[in-house]
């Protein structure tokens, strides 16, 4: 097993384990946010292995930086003394979750094995020069897809306006 493959499986298990910890084991929402950071950073490592360097950097900046910090700010605002999680999940919910999870898992496995949808080409060794780097990604983003960038700016503006309106209401 090559070093790259070893890194991939290590990051993969770390991401999966911390995601499971966030859902199953955590007793305090701050600990949940911290395990979300671990998942995000592991995914950024996998992105680097997949030659998506710019996406990896943006992943760490936006997810581990901005989004989780936003979560932590809100958790601080709420002043949760009991960990904020209240009673453990009820049995009915657990049954629902395990049922849906098992059904999806079995269904996906059936579809994948029957249709051979995973019989794609192996990862080619040869990549175009500078694939996934800032220059190539900048040319792709601000070339013929510049309308997408402007539309996502519009989405973010609408979100800012919505968040401010939601936060202001009730305080006047």
């Amino acid at each position: 097993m090559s070093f790259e493959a070893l890194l991939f499986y290590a990051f993969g298990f770390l991401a999966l384990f911390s995601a499971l910890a966030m859902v199953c084991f955590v007793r305090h929402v701050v600990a949940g946010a911290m395990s979300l950071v671990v998942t995000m950073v592991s995914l950024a490592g996998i992105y680097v292995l997949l030659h998506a360097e710019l996406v990896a950097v943006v992943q760490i900046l936006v997810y581990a930086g901005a989004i989780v910090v936003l979560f932590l700010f809100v958790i601080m605002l709420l002043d949760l003394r009991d960990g904020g999680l209240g009673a453990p999940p009820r049995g009915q919910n657990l049954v629902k979750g395990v049922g849906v999870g098992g059904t999806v898992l079995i269904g996906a496995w059936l579809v994948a094995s029957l249709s051979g949808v995973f019989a794609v080409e192996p990862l080619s060794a040869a990549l175009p020069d500078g694939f996934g780097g800032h220059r190539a990604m900048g040319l792709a983003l601000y070339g013929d897809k510049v309308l997408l960038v402007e539309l996502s700016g519009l989405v973010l503006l609408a979100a800012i306006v919505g968040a401010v309106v939601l936060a202001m209401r009730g305080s006047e």
Partner: protein
Amino acid sequence: MSIPVEHVVVLSALLFLVGAVGALVRRNVIVILMCIELMLNAGNLALVAFNRVWSATAEGAALHDGQVFVMMVIAVAAAEVAVGLGILLALVRNRDSLNVDDVSLLRW
């Protein structure tokens, strides 16, 4: 890279599954929002993996469509979390609760 793309896609599917089950099982609004972030990330991982497989056109020009899509998903996720946390604060202000079972007005 010596990893088959199937393994990356299976990892992405498992992460999505954990997020989906978490959003169904947990009753805490903050944890549900974090589970939604996890599901979006799992989708991003699949997009990056498939972009790695189809990384060039037949003429040899680089293709970054998947990674551009990931950027859009990240922008939408940031917008979603800003509005979601605003709704959460309004919920706490009005109901003094973080439990989604206390907010069942629109439930069938």
